[in-house]
């Protein structure tokens, strides 16, 4: 197998499977829920190593708490952000629909901390809009909110008020000059700087939920920015975000292969990053597989 072939990198992902099902973030490391969810999505979308997928989904289900949460690790039950990823990992399988619904219920009941809208005038954003966070003890931020929106949409909750609030939060956090960062817009009258990964994630979450004119400035930012991106996380999300709005660049696959080749220089990518690149590679017309209609339900389940 050639390193320029995505199958080579999917094999690398498969090699990170752990004994009781699921995946580690690095080769030889321990099980991680986020790495497991990303690896499932990448392998499923690419139709590769499918024998590893259901054991990994079962591992996620086994690690799920009674309230539906998937924590990053059992010793950190407050870090609930992998719950959204688990929903996407279970998306294509009826067998795990109960786990998926419990996880969705958990997300619908959980939100980042909120404040009254005018309580901190030094901030340009509205802290009263409920979204999602990384951790129970934290405010709402762009990435966990966007991932929760994508997950809840895939679980059938696109019209739920919490999803609508999440969309409102993302639009409120869009930078005046275009793009998103982790979640602050203006602080002490200074507009902060955009980040390509968060911009891509937010654009992916907002597709079909807002008017294109309202995010055009962010598409422009990302369209210009993606040309120089080769880091796996930013490149993947930038391509997914642009692709979601029909603007996947023609050189996308070439850039992804270039990013994959940079492992010779920087060392092996984490499972999460490798998975994101493999997902971005296979994305049909730029659309991520787990947002497609359910037409590929796992019969064996």
């Amino acid at each position: 197998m050639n390193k320029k072939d995505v199958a080579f990198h999917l094999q690398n992902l498969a090699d990170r499977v752990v004994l009781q099902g699921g995946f580690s973030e690095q080769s030889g490391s321990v099980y991680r829920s986020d790495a497991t969810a990303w690896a499932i999505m990448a392998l499923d979308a690419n139709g590769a190593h499918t024998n590893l997928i259901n054991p990994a989904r079962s591992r996620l289900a086994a690690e799920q708490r009674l309230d539906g949460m998937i924590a990053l690790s059992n010793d950190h039950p407050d870090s609930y952000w992998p719950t959204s990823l688990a929903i996407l990992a279970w998306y294509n399988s009826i067998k795990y629909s109960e786990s998926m619904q419990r996880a969705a219920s958990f997300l619908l009941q959980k939100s980042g901390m909120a404040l009254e809208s005018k309580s901190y005038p030094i901030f340009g954003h509205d802290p009263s809009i409920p979204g999602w966070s990384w951790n129970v003890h934290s405010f709402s931020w762009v990435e966990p909110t966007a991932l929760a929106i994508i997950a809840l949409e895939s679980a059938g909750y696109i019209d739920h008020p919490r999803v609508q609030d999440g969309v409102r939060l993302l639009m409120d956090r869009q930078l005046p000059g275009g793009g998103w960062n982790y979640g602050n817009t203006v602080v002490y009258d200074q507009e902060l700087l955009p980040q390509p990964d968060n911009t891509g994630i937010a654009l992916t979450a907002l597709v079909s939920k807002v008017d294109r004119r309202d995010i055009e400035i962010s598409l422009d930012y990302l369209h210009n920015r993606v040309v120089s991106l080769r880091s796996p996380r930013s490149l993947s999300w930038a391509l997914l975000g642009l692709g979601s709005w029909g603007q996947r660049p023609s050189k996308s696959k070439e850039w992804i292969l270039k990013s994959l080749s940079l492992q010779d220089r920087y060392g092996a990518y984490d499972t999460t990053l490798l998975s994101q690149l493999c997902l971005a590679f296979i994305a049909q017309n730029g659309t991520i597989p787990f947002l497609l209609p359910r037409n590929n339900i796992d019969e064996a389940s």
Partner: protein
Amino acid sequence: MKHHNVPNPKPLLTRRRFLQASLVGGFGVTFGGAFLAGKEFIWPRVMEYFGPRGETFIAKVADYNENLAAIILSGMAELGVDAPLIRGKRILLKPNLVEPHRTARHINTHPLVVRGAVEAFLSLGAERVIVAEGSGHYRDTQLVLEESGMVDVLYEDKIPFKDLNSSEWYIAPNLGNYTKLSTLTFPSILKQVDWIVSMPKLKTHHWAGVTLSMKNMFGVMPGMFYGWPKNVLHLHGITQSIIDINITMPPQFVIVDGIIGMEGDGPIMGMPKRSGVIVLGRNPVSVDATCARIMGIDPYKIRHLNAARAIGPIRDTYIYQRGEIVSSVRTDFELLDEIHAQRGLRLS
């Protein structure tokens, strides 16, 4: 170079010995309550007086093209950090790469300062030197390294890098207890090294007043548990979190990149400030106090530095000053009145 002599150190007093003495004296219960209530006020004052003295080294450095390894080595020699001390040690350098942007290199510790530190430690016989960071605002570590210019130095010099945001972890008891966090989670790599070297940028900060070696240690806390930004720590109190982290995981050495710093709305949106110094030391509190004075800022008015007197002195007469004296390199950083944390900080 001028040396600023200070009085002999006072007898050492630990917190345990202080409490034992209080109890023996018959006023432990009463004083204990007051002590806890006045954790930020009474204890730091007592400890600063009785505790060990600080020692810092200041070098004038005009720009990043100077022989930074030689400058750092000379400072280390002045501070007693020599080959017998460093030989065989595993060193972790922790620069500040909070949110890099290619067009704003003054946000981050300059890669050439990191290269100089690597060369200095290796020349003293360090077994291994690695660079590690858990960026506060960015999950994309590779982009962080590219945008900051760090990646070229790491690659050319074959220096290993560890992403502290997303690596294996361990849980440690919170030894500071200034926040309500009973434990703190650290990357496992921190247990596998002998020295952590905090390498901050000389910057003002819109929440903490200044961000120097102590605040830089926020970057060792994994984002996957504390968030991007590390908002869990913010909500437990920035001052309290800074002290808890530095008590539980104290850096053994500090190298401050003050060649070009940042003034005004730091740590991201401020303006470059050419201050022309590198500052070194073994006690982070004393180094930060010295840096604050170089910036024209009164360290007693920085809340976390004032409280941190419990773990190191900030009073100028308690800090042995090696190399340049503060007054010869002081360059007042702009402070913004509209930023609450920067009001009234100016050193008279």
